[in-house]
């Protein structure tokens, strides 16, 4: 059975911390997951076999959930991000540390939600609990939904 991510995955979420002064290693010291991409501003990184080596336009710590969560349900991907930020519902230690780094590095947190529905399918909603959970990060949520 093929184990890599499917190319037709319907849903995933991305989480990123970005800013010119951001050192992504500081984020990696808090979040127990390997980022999909991380580099400082101006740092060279390999973007892939075809793209080759590129230079960071800004400092970034970027995570896409499509290879981590094997589900087409957007809610499962949002749950993964929420659990990453809050190891327990009442544990705000990671969020507070992240907020401190973002403030110090004049950086921002962003979340994007990707979803492609089948004909006639209703687009998912972002649960109020998730919106409330990320409020402490002042993260914006961008939705890329289409049928």
């Amino acid at each position, binding site marked *: 059975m093929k184990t890599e991510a499917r190319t037709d995955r319907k849903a995933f979420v991305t989480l990123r911390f970005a800013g010119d002064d951001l050192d992504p290693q500081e984020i990696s010291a808090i979040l127990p997951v390997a980022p999909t991409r991380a580099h400082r501003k101006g740092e060279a990184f390999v973007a892939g076999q*075809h793209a080759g080596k590129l230079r960071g336009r800004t400092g970034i710590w970027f995570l896409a959930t499509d290879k981590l969560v094997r589900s087409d349900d957007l809610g499962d991907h949002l749950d993964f991000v929420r659990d990453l930020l809050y190891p327990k519902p009442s544990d705000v230690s990671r969020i507070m540390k992240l907020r401190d780094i973002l403030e110090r590095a004049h950086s921002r947190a962003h979340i994007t939600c990707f979803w492609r529905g089948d004909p006639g399918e209703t687009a998912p909603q972002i649960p109020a609990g998730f919106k409330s959970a990320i409020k402490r990060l002042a993260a914006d949520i961008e939705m890329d939904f289409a049928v």
Partner: protein
Amino acid sequence: MQRQRSRILWTNPGNPPGSVARALGMGPRHFSRALHKIKAASDLSDADRVVIYSDGLVTDAQGEPLGNLHDED
């Protein structure tokens, strides 16, 4: 050199039409997913303008390379 031979398929903000995915030999969902990831990983929003070339290269509006759609599985 490769880029000089490639042609521009798309140079607008937002989601490109299915014809761009077809020109690259990609399924529409795979293409959308790859473009979404390249933009997000470059700290761009869906509304930001990018340029897509026939070899899969994606650049920002200033021509700075962001990634290649064929690298995103």
